[in-house]
């Protein structure tokens, strides 16, 4: 299989532009099972935020309930974190971002948290285009309750106990595209290079970025017959394209033949590079995105890459036309109307 990323010629320095080390982006020790895909995702989140030189104090981490939802405690300990209730993290994140739209929001969810109990909130978050990076660490099972099928489990996939899933899986990427999400990607915990580029691009995105990561559960869904284990995923990963990411403060220094790479400029001025592996895949075409996802499912492929990307869509906070200063920090001189205003209202009611 081809490499999933476009190699950048720029070297990664030992310190980022804030003078911080990767270690400064770390968190508490993971309590997940050794080899859990989620820990691999955590590592790439640390790397992406470090390499993007994001000020961790300006980040807010959110999660629901489940194994995946524990992970915000394992990265960015300098950021406020909120481990909320099962499936309803999108609403908490929405409220927090409305209170302070300067926060960089990152939400970590799982397939149980998003595709079952939280499906409604997930869909409405996407529909509103809440500015947040929303990662689904998707392993097809409920890990914390010891291995029941989730709604993303593939048809025919087997539990350790031999029980076969006979319901069709939900494709959260197709759903996000359908709902008008401006950034839809699928990654694989076993492909960190692709993952980190997707993450960096998501940091540069100004609306909801949905990242569905196939993140194997080594304890309950990594056996023969599982379709979300490491071996199966590696064998079935299908690259949509190679991804490169060039931040706004760097020059594009990648050599490529004209016509082979699509450049997409993000809101913050950075550039996402997508090198064609397939003929004419257009990541701004909703219909093509959905049909390609369906084709992959039918062919038993695990399609990864930046499936859909339209960075220009207005985010919810932009739509609400709020003042530039975060709402929470407004003081009474702005938020308490005048005595005359109350008099006028009272006059009207007399």
């Amino acid at each position, binding site marked *: 299989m081809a490499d999933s990323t476009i190699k950048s010629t720029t070297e990664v320095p030992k310190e980022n532009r804030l003078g911080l080390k990767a270690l400064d982006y770390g968190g508490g020790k993971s309590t997940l099972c050794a080899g859990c895909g989620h820990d691999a995702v955590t590592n790439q989140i640390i790397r992406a935020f470090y390499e993007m030189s994001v000020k*961790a*104090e*300006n980040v*807010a981490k*959110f999660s629901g309930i489940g194994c995946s939802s524990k992970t*915000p*405690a394992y990265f960015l*300990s*300098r*950021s*406020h*974190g*909120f*481990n*909320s*209730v099962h499936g*309803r993290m*999108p*609403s*908490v*994140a*929405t*409220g*927090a*971002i*409305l*209170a*302070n739209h*300067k*926060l960089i929001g990152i939400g970590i969810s799982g397939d149980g948290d998003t595709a079952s109990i939280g499906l*409604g*909130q997930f869909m*409405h978050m996407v529909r*509103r285009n809440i500015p947040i990076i929303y990662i689904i660490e998707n392993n097809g099972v409920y890990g914390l309750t010891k291995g029941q099928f989730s709604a993303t489990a593939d048809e025919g996939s087997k539990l350790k106990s031999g029980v076969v899933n006979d319901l069709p899986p939900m494709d959260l990427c197709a759903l996000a595209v359908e709902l008008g999400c401006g950034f839809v990607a699928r990654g694989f915990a076993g492909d960190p290079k692709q993952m980190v580029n997707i993450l960096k691009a998501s940091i540069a995105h100004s609306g909801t970025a949905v990242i569905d990561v196939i993140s194997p559960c080594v304890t309950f869904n990594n056996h023969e017959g599982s379709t979300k284990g490491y071996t199966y995923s590696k064998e079935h990963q299908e690259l949509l394209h190679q991804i490169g990411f060039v931040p706004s403060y760097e020059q594009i220094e990648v050599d490529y033949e004209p016509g082979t790479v699509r450049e997409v400029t993000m809101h913050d001025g950075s550039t996402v590079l997508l090198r064609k592996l397939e003929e004419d895949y257009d990541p701004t075409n909703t219909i093509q995105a959905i049909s390609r996802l369906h084709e992959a499912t039918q062919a038993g492929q695990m399609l990864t890459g930046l499936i859909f990307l339209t960075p220009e869509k207005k985010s919810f*906070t932009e739509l*609400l*036309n*709020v*003042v*530039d200063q*975060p*709402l*929470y*920090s*407004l*003081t*009474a001189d*702005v*938020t*308490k*109307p005048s*005595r005359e*205003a*109350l008099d006028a*209202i*009272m006059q009207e*009611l*007399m």
Partner: protein
Amino acid sequence: MSETLIVPAALEENWSPGDGPVINDLTIHVATVNGSGSQSSNSVLMRSIFQMGVPVSGKNMFPSNIAGLPTWFTIRANKDGWIARKKEVDILVCMNAQTVKEDVEALTAGSICIYDAPLNCRVMRSDLLFYEVPFAKLAMELTTDPRLRKLLANMLYVGIVAELIGIDRQEIVTALNKQFKGKKKAVDLNVQAIDKGMEHTRTALEGQQRFRIERMHKTEGKIIIDGNAAAAIGSVFGGVQVVTWYPITPSSSLVESMIDYLKEYRVDENGKATFAVVQAEDELAAVGMVLGAGWAGARSMTSTSGPGISLMAEFVGLGYFAEIPGVIWDIQRVGPSTGLPTRTSQGDVLEVFTLSHGDTQHIVLIPSSVSECFDFAIEALDLAEMFQTPVFVLSDLDLGMNNWMSDPFKYPEKEFRRGKIMTAEKLTELGGKWGRYLDVDGDGIPYRTVPGTAHLDAAYFTRGSGHDAYARYSERPEDYKATVDRLARKNETARKFVPKPAIERVEGARIGLVAYGTTDFALQESRHQLKKEKNIDTSYLRLRALPFTSELKAFVAEHEHVYVVEQNRDGQMGDLIRLEVGSDQSKIRKILHYSGLPCDARFITNAVLTMEEVASSPSGPGKSPAPEVSSSRVPMQGPPPLGFKGDGQD
């Protein structure tokens, strides 16, 4: 078309022209069909009485329906300011064939019945004063548009009632201008209908001398507003920053009217909003957003009713345990389940007080007037941030959706109280050493940072799972106990900060009355009745918040019997009071009104008299112990405390 004045026998007995008319004391009941536009007519009628200077209230009793089902509107005008619901109707306007039978049957002898000619009410009873009006024919003379005709028929009865009881035409025109916001075409058309109705009354109907409205000056400088709009204005002036909601009767109009006020008064000079309003996908999301916003430091709120509160239960427990501010208005309607969505109740007391699983206890503010809706909107935003917890405001349909007279709201002079916020500067002073859940001040209230605080040690991890004083995950028994014990301490602190009850003590009164919320209107009138009719003195404590303040215990201790009057089946507040007062609990008696209609004064008076045995003892309150059960209408509410339940008459 001439109408002969018939004075039925019963009417002659009760009243004769020599008695002179009853001035400024009447109840008008309008029976129409939902969706027929009668709302405007009724508002105009009510407002014109208000403009005559007579204290007035208007109650809309409507179905959960858009069009076609019966709806009633009751206006009570009373020179002494008694504007609670009164069951007895003086003037009925009968426009609805579906309910005509029960509407006419419910009248007391001697009442006036104005009816649409085809309903032929006259044959139903002989003891009423009937006015037959050919509404369809009169409306036809006004317009050829069939849709308009229906609306104008309703305006016709305003003219008829006005002419019959003596409301000035000019006051109606003024009220119409207010109602239609000066839209000339609408006002002109409706004035024509009013004039037509008045003229018809003068020429075709006999006048009546039973009820009159005469100009007085008791409403000067007053406003008319519903509780939901009052709450909306209060929130706007309370500096609310994030508002979320999901439509539900009877709460929707709170945020809907808030949106109008926010757009008018909370947009800066560049046209940018100093607020965010989200219509959420459901109440779970609405409260989730409130907590997210509160966590991030905003003054946030949502508004809902019983079913929404039930859905919010899980999140509210998170807010309590993780200590996150947020305000939740509950405009109570009748439950359980869908219940009676368009009727009033005080049935959510226990639910909101202890909402969510585990040991929880919340601050609950209970306004009983539109001005308290305004004040408590601000107070709730302050208390939520001061106590870092969800705060409920318990209103109800009667207060929230009906129009009430009030003195104008006073400008909130107090500074906003934003609670214990740890800033980057304070953190630097402390050398970055702090614990999110450390009880530094001994009042159970810790300090918090908000996300985005520019300090490397500002961050902490919020979770609904077990945690220690430093917000670290913990399942240790001592950490859990320390957390919930501190939360209990915080609840104790809250007792000193929530609004104190309003108390009216009468020297020597043996009987104490306790009520809250909209029961207040009927209760005050009932005290007046007890004094005037039976010379019974009562003291009165009106609760304004949970948890209870120290005044309650003292009040119960001072009285022989304490009647807790409320609008739910189980006497929920009564039970909480019994728990609170301990050894005095046998003094607590319950008077319970739970038909979905607002409580009326006579109901309370009768209940008190029954339980005090006054009914059978004309000399006044007996010295013997009160009966456990004195009639079949007084079922026992668990032995031995007494209860009076009812209003089967509704």
